C-alpha cells in the first residue's frame, strides 16, 4: 500500500500535513504527535522581522468552527532558522515553511534567507485576512498575485506553494494565475473572513473585529473550492479547511487534492493528524486501494 505523494518533486511519505498557524513549528505538539509520522509539517508564517500580532481577544469559538485574528505573530526569520528549523531538522518529515510579509521585498527577503536551509518547500501566505498590509492584499488581486508569484519563483531555491484565500469571486482564476506565473503548487483554503458580536456587551468579540473562520463549518466551501482549483490547473493542489478525520481528508483527495492539511482540529484533539493518517490507511486497505493516487480527483 503506497500512501506517498509527490508535490513538485518532493516526496511526502503520506498526504497529511499540518495547516500553517495551527501547529506552531511542531515543538509543542511533539509532546503528543510523532512528527516522524507526518507527511509534512507546515510551520506558522514567518516574516523578515519579529511581528507582534494583533491585540487580544484573538480567538473566538463559533458553531462548528472558530474565528482567529492572531495577526501572524512570529519571532522573525533569524530566530525561526536558529530555533524552529533546527528543531524540525531532527525529524524524518518534510518541512514546509509558510512565508509572510507586508511588501514583496519582505517576502523575497524571507525566501532568500531560507535558500540555504533545510526547508523542503515554501508556502507563500498571500491569504491571511488578519493583517493590514500584505498577505491577503496579494491574494485577492490576480495581477498582484501573478507579480508576487513570479518574483518569488525567481529567488526561491525550494518549490513554491501559493496559499490561496477563499475570499475571492473566482478561485479557479486565482489558481490558474499562480500556475501561469510559475508556482509549483497551490494550497487552499485559508480562513474565510468572519465576525462575531457579543449581544450582551454589544461589542465585537475579537479585538480585530474580523477574523478568519476555520473548522468543520467551512469544510463544504473548502471542498468545493479545491475541486474548482484542481479542475483548473495541472500543478498539485493541497486541500484544507475543516478536516477533522480521515473521511474529511478523503473528500478533499477525491475532489482533486494531492495532499491535505489538518488545522483547527489540532486544537480539539492534539493527536488528530496521526488519526487521519491511520484512517486513510484503513480506508485504502478496506477498499483495496494500492496507491493513494488512484483516488486523487476521482469524484464523479
Amino acid at each position, binding site marked *: 500500500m503506497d500512501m506517498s505523494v509527490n508535490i513538485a518533486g518532493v516526496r511526502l511519505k503520506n498526504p497529511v500535513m499540518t495547516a500553517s498557524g495551527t501547529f506552531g513549528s511542531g515543538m509543542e505538539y511533539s509532546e503528543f504527535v510523532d512528527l516522524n509520522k507526518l507527511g509534512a509539517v507546515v510551520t506558522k508564517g514567518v516574516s523578515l522581522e519579529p511581528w507582534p500580532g494583533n491585540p487580544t481577544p484573538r480567538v473566538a469559538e463559533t458553531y462548528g468552527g472558530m474565528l482567529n485574528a492572531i495577526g501572524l505573530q512570529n519571532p522573525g526569520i533569524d530566530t525561526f532558522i536558529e530555533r524552529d528549523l533546527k528543531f524540525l531538522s531532527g525529524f524524518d518529515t518534510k518541512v514546509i515553511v509558510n512565508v509572510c510579509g507586508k511588501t514583496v521585498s519582505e517576502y523575497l527577503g524571507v525566501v532568500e534567507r531560507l535558500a540555504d536551509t533545510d526547508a523542503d518547500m515554501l508556502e507563500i501566505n498571500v491569504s491571511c485576512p488578519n493583517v493590514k498590509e500584505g498577505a491577503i492584499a496579494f491574494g485577492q488581486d490576480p495581477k498582484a498575485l501573478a507579480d508576487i508569484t513570479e518574483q518569488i519563483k525567481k529567488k526561491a531555491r525550494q518549490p513554491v506553494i501559493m496559499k490561496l484565500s477563499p475570499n475571492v469571486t473566482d478561485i479557479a482564476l486565482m489558481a490558474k494565475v499562480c500556475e501561469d506565473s510559475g508556482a509549483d503548487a497551490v494550497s487552499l483554503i485559508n480562513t474565510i473572513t468572519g465576525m462575531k458580536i457579543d449581544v450582551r456587551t454589544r461589542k465585537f468579540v475579537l479585538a480585530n473585529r474580523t477574523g478568519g473562520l476555520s473548522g468543520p463549518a467551512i469544510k463544504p466551501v473548502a471542498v468545493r473550492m479545491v475541486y474548482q482549483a484542481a479542475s483548473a490547473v495541472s500543478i498539485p493542489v493541497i486541500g484544507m479547511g475543516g478536516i477533522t478525520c480521515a473521511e474529511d481528508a478523503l473528500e478533499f483527495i477525491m475532489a482533486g487534492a494531492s495532499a491535505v492539511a489538518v488545522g483547527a482540529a489540532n486544537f*480539539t484533539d492534539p493527536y488528530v493528524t496521526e488519526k487521519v493518517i491511520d484512517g486513510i490507511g484503513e480506508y485504502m486497505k478496506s477498499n483495496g486501494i494500492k496507491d493513494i493516487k488512484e483516488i486523487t480527483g476521482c469524484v464523479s
Partner: protein
Amino acid sequence: MKIRETASVISQECLCDGIYSMVIATKAAESAQAGQFVMIYPGSAARLLPRPISICEISPGAVRIVYRIAGAGTEEMSHLRAGDPVEILGPNGNGFFAAVREDIRPDTKALLLGGGIGIPPMLELAKSLECDVAIAAGYRSADEMFLTRELLAAGRLYVATDDGSAGTRGTVMDAVRENGIDADIIFACGPRPMLVAVKSYAAKKGISAYLSMEERMACGIGACLGCVCASAGIDDHSKVKNKRVCADGPVFPASEVEL
C-alpha cells in the same frame, strides 16, 4: 508532563448560582501544581475548543475544578455526572511555584488575593504554602460566596463583597487596606481591574507580586499564539513584547506584564 486522556467524573455539585465544583479522576493529578490549569473538551462536536479551567484542589489521582457557567461550553460541562467520561488535557501552564523567583520561608507572609472565579486556584496554593497565609476573597454578595469553608481551613480569610453584604464592602484591595494586612509576597487571580489594582499596590509597597492571567485560548499548549498578554520587555520566545498565557504563564511576576 501533560496528559491528554478520557478521564472520569467523580462528583459534580453546584456551589451557588452559576458556580460549579467538579472532581475528576485523572492522571494529570500526578504532576499538577497550584496555579496550573486543565483543558476540558466539550462533548458537542459543534464546540471545537477546550475550556481552560484553573485547578482548585489536587489530591492523589484527582483534580477539583471550580468554574462559573460563562457560556454553552461550561453549561454543558455542568451537566456531567459522577461516572461520566470527560476529555481532559493537563496540567497546563507554569503554576505559582514555578513562577516564583524568591525563597518562601516559614516566616514569609504570603497574601493570596482571589476575585470571583479567580478564587479557586488560591485554595490549592494556600494548602501548598508552608508559611504564613492570609487570603482575601472578593465576591459579588453574601449569597454568592463559595469555597469559604475550605479557605478558612487553609489560612486567615478576609472577605470582600461588591454590595457589602459580607465582609468589607468593595474589592479585595479594600479588604487588604481595611484589615491592614501586610505581606512579603502577593499572589493574585481575578478580573483585570483587580489585577491592575494589585499590581499598582504591590509596586507602591515594594512587595513582589505574582498574577495569574486569563485569556481566551485555542490550543492551550503554546502553539497557536491565541492567548498572549503584553509583556514589559521583549520575550525570549516570541521576540516581541508578548508572552503566551497558556505556556509561559498563566502566572507572571506583576512587573513583567503590562495590564
